[in-house]
């Protein structure tokens, strides 16, 4: 089985968000990047488990610049066989998906696994876009994925519940909590990652359809109103008459 896992980087979850250049750019000064948690914990690890059970290969693909290589090496340390970096700045989901789809067309992958969203831009766009480019089914927000022969069975989140579905490979799957357990890379993995192939491919200059022109921080919250713990009638009164939420 040939598995392709889409890996993106994201600012560490504790990053203080600020902007520069007249609020037109995310301030990356001092920001520590990690592998986007959904890509690492769920997509990559489930890909590795499927490979361990059924044989095959796990390749990672990243659209990004040389700055992405530290996070790509982390994915290799966790166990991916090889990595591909498509050499361009990732600026727009449509662009990223087109680049990945163009690359995937050359490789006959049985499964393309992604995270459910990037934790910086929270777009949840790339997976569906890749699937449409490749005319494949897209199973979004999967919390379980099993493959037998040429058929995959999955659990996916739907509004208010869970659906179990079945589809033939090839498929695009976005991965959410439940899919797998996080794996911490060991020393051997980290050493091995250094010599694993990380291939840089030229970009196909895909179109960008959207751009961020400005950012804004939310208006600061006014100070909290403290309520006497003995007096919950007052809280109820405030929620009804002042906040008007009950």
């Amino acid at each position, binding site marked *: 089985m040939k598995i392709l896992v889409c890996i993106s980087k994201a600012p560490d*979850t504790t990053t203080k968000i600020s902007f520069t250049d007249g609020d037109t750019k995310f301030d990356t000064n001092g920001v520590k990047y990690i592998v986007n948690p959904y890509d690492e914990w769920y997509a990559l690890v489930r890909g590795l488990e499927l490979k361990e059970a059924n044989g095959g290969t796990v390749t990672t693909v990243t659209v990004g610049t040389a700055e992405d290589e530290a996070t790509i090496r982390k994915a290799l340390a966790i166990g991916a066989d090889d990595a591909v970096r498509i050499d361009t700045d990732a600026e727009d989901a449509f662009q990223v998906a087109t680049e990945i789809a163009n690359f995937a067309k050359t490789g006959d992958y049985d499964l393309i696994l992604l995270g459910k969203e990037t934790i910086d*831009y929270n777009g949840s766009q790339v997976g569906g876009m890749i699937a449409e480019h490749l005319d494949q089914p897209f199973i979004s927000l999967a919390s379980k994925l099993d493959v037998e022969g040429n058929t995959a069975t999955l659990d996916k989140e739907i*509004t208010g519940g869970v659906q179990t579905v079945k589809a033939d490979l090839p498929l695009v799957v976005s991965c959410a*909590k439940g899919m797998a357990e996080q794996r911490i890379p060991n020393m051997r993995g980290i050493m091995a990652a250094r010599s694993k192939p990380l291939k840089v491919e030229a970009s196909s200059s895909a179109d960008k359809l959207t751009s961020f022109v400005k950012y804004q921080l939310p208006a600061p919250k006014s100070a909290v109103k403290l309520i006497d*713990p003995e007096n919950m009638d007052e809280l109820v009164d405030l929620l009804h008459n002042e906040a008007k939420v009950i």
Partner: protein
Amino acid sequence: MSVLVYIDSSGDKIAKNAYEAVTYGKKLGDVTAVTNGKASEGDLAELGKYGADKVLVDRSFEGIDDQQLTKLVATAAEKTGATTIVFSNDLVGKAVAPRLSVRLNAGLVSGATDLPKEDGTIPVNVFSGKAFGHVKVSTDKKIIALLPNSLQPEETGSEAAVEEFDGNAGDSRVEVLDTKLPEGEIPLPEAELVVSAGRGLKGPENWGIVTDLAETLGAATACSRPVADTGWRPHHEHVGQTGVAIRPNLYIAAGISGAIQHLAGVNGSKVIVVINTDEEAPFFKAADYGVVGDAFEVLPRLNEAIKKFKASN
């Protein structure tokens, strides 16, 4: 301007976020709504109240297969000549809108929180609610996926004309084996009131005071990540950066410290009430109302106060 709004009618009734999407579309132009499945003519005509002139319904297929729905919406967009297509950014919208973006070569803005600004840019939530970004779309055709609970549905019109139509949706390549919808529970992403608790509750045996309050309020229940990870509560209740992101009208958090990853999933709530023994807990900085006190005493007291309020209103 001709606006097309996709409506998910796969549930028993049309959800509030569909009315939000129609209301949003109406503020941009003349709205046609499109859907599939078996929703009753009356329920569909109801969309007229929120501003839809017409509802196109394809009764040849049911379900939420994203390949079929993409073709359906694309066919409707061509038929109506719509230049803006609006989705609710719920789980169906998140699967269909990106596909449609590729199919129509139309820029997609997902997670829009408001109407386009004067310069045409559209505000979205980024960094898990820690900031807003303004997105410019460079194509003439635009797709906007509206974050649920970003605006209130407004009743402006009367009944919409409901028209049967063939969306050329083709067959589904995904077979649905089973659908589990827990009964009686209010789905967290849709809940307007949420009661949530964290490690401060000490153990799963103490959750009665949380569920009692939720029941009195008609609220959904939620929890912090360690609570779900240790199996005190089911995984679908976990809110935050790596769990569900919610934006209810009221979020009550008891015994939760307010770590930045937790806040990322709840900071879109309109009103936040925090109950914590530690007055230094970081959550108080994000709260509208705070109670410095023991959840084991405060939650039951709040429950009684709400019962009293409900009885007299």
